[in-house]
């Protein structure tokens, strides 16, 4: 025993414990995100409670805990029906409950507004269509399939309208430029463009009326619902996004519903100020920003690394470059944001505006945050990651290979492009992936230089010139911050935040694992042990 202490074994255990704590923390983090994120889409059953005071409650159980005031067990119920009850959640003390049941016919309606509706379907008012199905629920489903064609039409019209809107806006900007250059000089052109624009606007109005008419037509079909408190409500088909009877769903039906929700998450637009619906614009914005960023950071990073490893002699200059690289990596990201705002947005953007778009001022075009400025800012921020990874991979290539190439008469540049760079590609890829992961998760600078909570248009679409570098965009990381901390109803938004977090975490973890795997494989490929 004495020896055990003397040799310091306990200290070894203590250090092991430190590692254990770190691992426990990491696992807790991942576990929390996974359990909260994965479970959200699973159709949970609607439980009906009868309470001592005679009232009833219907909802999904979200939490169970001890009431901090009374010490009694209580549970949190998501009761939905925000427009009727005023809030999504309520706490129920267990001792208040007299009976609980799982009514098979309880219906969950996902609505476009006011969150979910939990209740019972009484009937369907059908106007303009004939419903042949038996039960009201089947009727409702049938009604939905019958109008799905019309719903698709409205979607198409909406797309046409947004295109028209874009064209009209472009025309307006052109007109503005012509007027700025001189109304008299360009009178003919102005008249012509105005005519075109008015035609487009008329078309827009026509489409709008058409869509309103179609929607009104569909809207006349309503589901007659009653909630658990006895109140009734007619919900029109246009309001309903999805419906299910979670209490009578089979396991496979639940799986299908789950997958459908995942599809919606990845491919649909958000609803209800981002707290529901999909994440598509945020995913798209993140990916596009990251790709755009790599276009800037990769060449710059690789060249700097080549300089450091292949061209620079050990001296003051190299030391300074190294210090600079370390500082680029160490300067707080918010400082990059501030720099981006001062230099890219107001500096370059402002200059571009005064030179090329003076007619639009004071409305800024490039002189405000946008995807281009965000990518440039993040490119600067992630360059060190590329540099370090590339340098490391160049360093791991044995000297003999370089010497061999040079001895055969190749120039330094030829050696570089034909031998070294191909060999270093895995390392460069590592750097690229790591920098992408870093950029995907970085939020602070983006908040200043171009991210918004809700972007009306994507930075890439089918309208010429396809890439709209001046547009603001949505970002997964910012989405987490915004929905979790800025939304009016944080409690109801939490599940969405967990899902977004899980998605972001998955992207980042998968990317970094790939990068680390690539790097380690390369390390072991070239490393020759000397001891």
């Amino acid at each position, binding site marked *: 025993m004495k020896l055990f202490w003397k*040799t310091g*074994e306990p200290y070894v*255990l*203590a250090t*092991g*414990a*430190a*590692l*254990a*704590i*770190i691992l*426990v923390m990491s696992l807790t*983090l991942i576990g929390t995100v996974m359990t909260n994120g994965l479970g959200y889409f699973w159709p949970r059953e609607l439980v009906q409670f009868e309470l001592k005071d005679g009232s009833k409650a219907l909802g999904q159980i979200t939490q169970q*805990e001890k009431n901090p005031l009374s010490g009694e067990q209580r549970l949190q119920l998501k009761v939905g029906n925000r427009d009727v009850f005023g809030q999504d959640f309520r706490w129920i003390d267990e001792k208040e409950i007299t009976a609980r049941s799982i009514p098979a016919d309880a219906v969950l309606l996902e609505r476009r507004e006011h969150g979910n509706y939990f209740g019972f379907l009484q009937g369907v008012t059908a106007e303009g269509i004939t419903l042949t199905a038996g039960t009201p629920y089947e009727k409702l489903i049938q009604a939905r399939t019958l109008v799905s064609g019309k719903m698709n039409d409205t979607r198409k019209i909406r797309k046409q309208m947004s295109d028209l809107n874009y064209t009209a806006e472009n025309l307006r900007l052109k007109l503005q430029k012509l007027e700025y250059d001189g109304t008299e000089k360009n009178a003919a052109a102005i008249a012509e463009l105005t005519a075109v624009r008015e035609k487009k606007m008329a078309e827009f109005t026509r489409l709008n009326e058409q869509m309103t008419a179609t929607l009104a037509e569909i809207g006349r079909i309503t589901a007659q619902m009653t909630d658990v408190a006895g109140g009734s409500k007619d919900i029109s088909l246009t309001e309903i996004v999805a419906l299910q009877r979670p209490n009578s769903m089979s396991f496979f039906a639940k799986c299908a519903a789950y997958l459908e929700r995942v599809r919606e998450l990845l491919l649909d637009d958000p609803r209800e100020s981002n707290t529901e619906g999909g994440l598509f614009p945020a995913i798209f914005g993140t990916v596009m920003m990251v790709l755009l960023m790599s276009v800037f950071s990769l060449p710059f990073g690789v*060249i*700097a690394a*080549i*300089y*450091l490893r292949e*061209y*620079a002699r050990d001296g003051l200059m190299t030391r300074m*470059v*190294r*210090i*600079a*690289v370390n*500082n*680029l*990596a*160490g*300067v*707080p990201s*918010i*400082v990059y*944001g*501030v720099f981006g705002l*001062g*230099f890219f947005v*107001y500096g370059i953007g402002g200059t571009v505006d005064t030179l090329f778009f003076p007619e639009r001022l004071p409305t800024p075009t490039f002189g405000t945050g946008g995807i281009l400025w965000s990518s440039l800012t993040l490119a600067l921020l992630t360059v060190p990651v590329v540099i370090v990874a590339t340098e490391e991979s160049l360093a791991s290539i044995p000297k003999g290979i370089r010497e061999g190439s040079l001895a055969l008469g190749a120039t330094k*540049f*030829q050696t*570089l492009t034909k031998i070294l760079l191909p060999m270093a590609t895995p390392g460069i890829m590592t750097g690229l992936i*790591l920098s992408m992961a870093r950029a995907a*998760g970085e939020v*602070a600078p983006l*908040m*200043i230089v171009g991210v918004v909570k809700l972007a009306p248009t994507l930075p890439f679409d089918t309208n010429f010139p396809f890439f709209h570098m001046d547009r603001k965009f949505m970002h997964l*990381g910012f989405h*987490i*911050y915004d929905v*979790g*901390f800025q939304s009016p109803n944080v409690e109801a938004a939490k599940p969405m*935040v967990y899902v977004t*977090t899980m998605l972001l*975490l998955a992207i*980042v*973890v998968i*990317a970094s*694992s790939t990068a680390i795997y690539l790097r380690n494989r390369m390390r072991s490929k070239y490393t020759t042990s000397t*001891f």
Partner: protein
Amino acid sequence: MAKNFTDKSRRNDRLAEVLIRIGGLFVIVSVVWILVMISRVALPLFYPPSSKIAATVKVPTAILSGKVLAVGSEEYQQGAFVLDDSGTFHFLNMADGSLSASIKTPMVPVGADHVVSAEYIGKSAYNLLWNNGAITSVTVGLTAAKAREGTVTLTHDVTAKDDIAFAAAGGIVQSFARPIEDRGAVRIDRLSGDHLRVTHQLVETDLLGTEKRTTTSVDLTDPLPGRLSAVTVDSKGHYLYAGTDTGWLLRWDISEPGTITLLESTPASENHKAITSLALVLGDVSVAVGDTGGALTTWFPVKVAGSGEDRRLTRIHTLRSNVAATAFIIASPRDKTLYSGDTGTIHVDHMTSERNLLTIKPLAPVTHAALSPKGNSLATLDRTGTLTIRKMDIPHPEISFGTLFGKVWYEGYDKPEYSWQSSASNDDFEPKMSLVPLVFGTIKATLFAMLFAVPLALLAALYTSQFMSPKLKGRVKPVVEIMAAIPSVVIGFLAGLWLAPLIDKSVLTVFLSIVIVPLMLLLTIFFWKRIKGASPLQRVSRGHEFIAMIPVVILGIYLAFLLSGIAEVHLFAGDFKQWLFSTLGIRYDQRNSIIIAIALGFAVIPIIFTIAEDAISNVPRNLTAASLALGASRWQTAWRVVLPSALPGVFSAVMIGFGRAIGETMIVLMATGNTPILSWSLFNGLRSLSANIAVEIPEAPLNSSLYRVLFLSAVLLFIFTFIINTGAEALRQRFRKKYGRY
């Protein structure tokens, strides 16, 4: 062909070399460029203000033949006006000195003949006191518009303001009149014989729409400590201030019609110098006092020890003195800037920053001076009849080294304080931009996080590099590296919305864990030898100990949680937070420094761990081998041989972690309440420099003081981290050199 080819190769080679060298240099350039660009935005905060004469005009003698009562100008320094005692406003075009128009005031009271004095009451409005004691009010409109070709057109008008109209009265020396919103108006007269009279003229409209006018008058006849030498009234007509020739400053409450209550009288200077002028600073809180000695001080009511809830006028700011007696004080309509003048000079000072912004020396003694409604042009009329308009360029008067880093006594505060509150809903707000609470918050967050992270990260790094089996190491290291890639917004979100409510439910668990987890570990260590013999643990061989520790840690935390429930009931009357507040007076915020320590610590652990682990692993294996061969145990080798050698690298790891924690934004933003307070309490939130930038910069108008101060804090962050990172890199380079030969 071959020659051609080699030539081309050579040329490409040289070209590539140049390009690559430029690329390398570009890294340095970008670092310098970042610093230069953000400093360039911050620096104008400290540029000296300036004023330049925009135009001078000799006022036509025809106008000067009457008595001039007031002058004024507009924001582009193109037009000016002079009011004479007939009640006529003469508008002058400053470009050529021509008389653009003369407009007589539209409303002359019955029996009045000429104007005795004019009082500027803000928003281009003047009260005119007529020779029979009647008061009327007019608004002067003067705007200059510049066409694209550069020609200036002046538009001007004089309109009657009907909210102030008082009938004739006798024996008046000086008068003030203020509208009372929707209720009428009040006039305050200084009568001969040092009497003051307050007259409320109120209008009440009953339900039927009939107006009932009441006039209430009250005279102040109390004996005063000296003769009145200066009087002023705040813009709402609630408080009356007076100064005497014996240096007393008096304040009355006149808000109730029919009553006049002396709130206090206090000597304004030690040697009882006569007060020569009084003016209210924008916002009506502070009163500026000038005396015969030329001193300029500002005062506002402050809770004084021993006087209960009473607030007494207290001297707050002492501004730069004039040489001779202060003849006039003009408060800027835009901020807390004061223009004060004796006969020879005009001083421009800012109250909050106590900065003497400018000293203007007019050619001849000034008789009248006035600021334009936007506060950016100063019109002065001197004894020679010359009207001068100066363009005042004072972009950031409220910023000084003192206001950024020192204690400042802000309006409404009971003592000088470090405070950050950049904006409020009202325009006459005094911005509080002390960086001290923010720097403090940054240091507090960093320190707590490092206290949490450094021991864990370093011990774990030591274990991983020295004791862990190589096979496991190959798995654990990547895990920690992936941890480093977890976006801070994820950690911040979990800390703010998951961990904070969790800890809120049982704060004690955290404290008990600190005791119980090590205790449990100690116990385990104690019994290690014995339990190692047990069958399932036999496999936990050297290099795998940490796996056995995982359940111990979890168990420890769980035990702490259980105990905390018991302890709370028995020791803290059921509620620890309540007990904390009632017994120790400590307020508990849900998002507090404990959360920050854990979340920020968690974010920097992987960074410190990775670098430290690399440094420790890079100690040449032959040192370890030699030590082990000489009979040292693995701990002795690690602690006495490896660690000292790796110390520079380990230290550099800690520094880099420190640098990262200083600048971390999202975690601090999400896991604290962002309250800029100076408190070391674990249970309070904080606001760091970086989070402050993220919070405030979207609302900061381009090139405003706030915008530049935020850039200044970015410069501070840059410099902090630059020093730390450069230091760490220097250490690492030394470390590399030391072991480079192996």
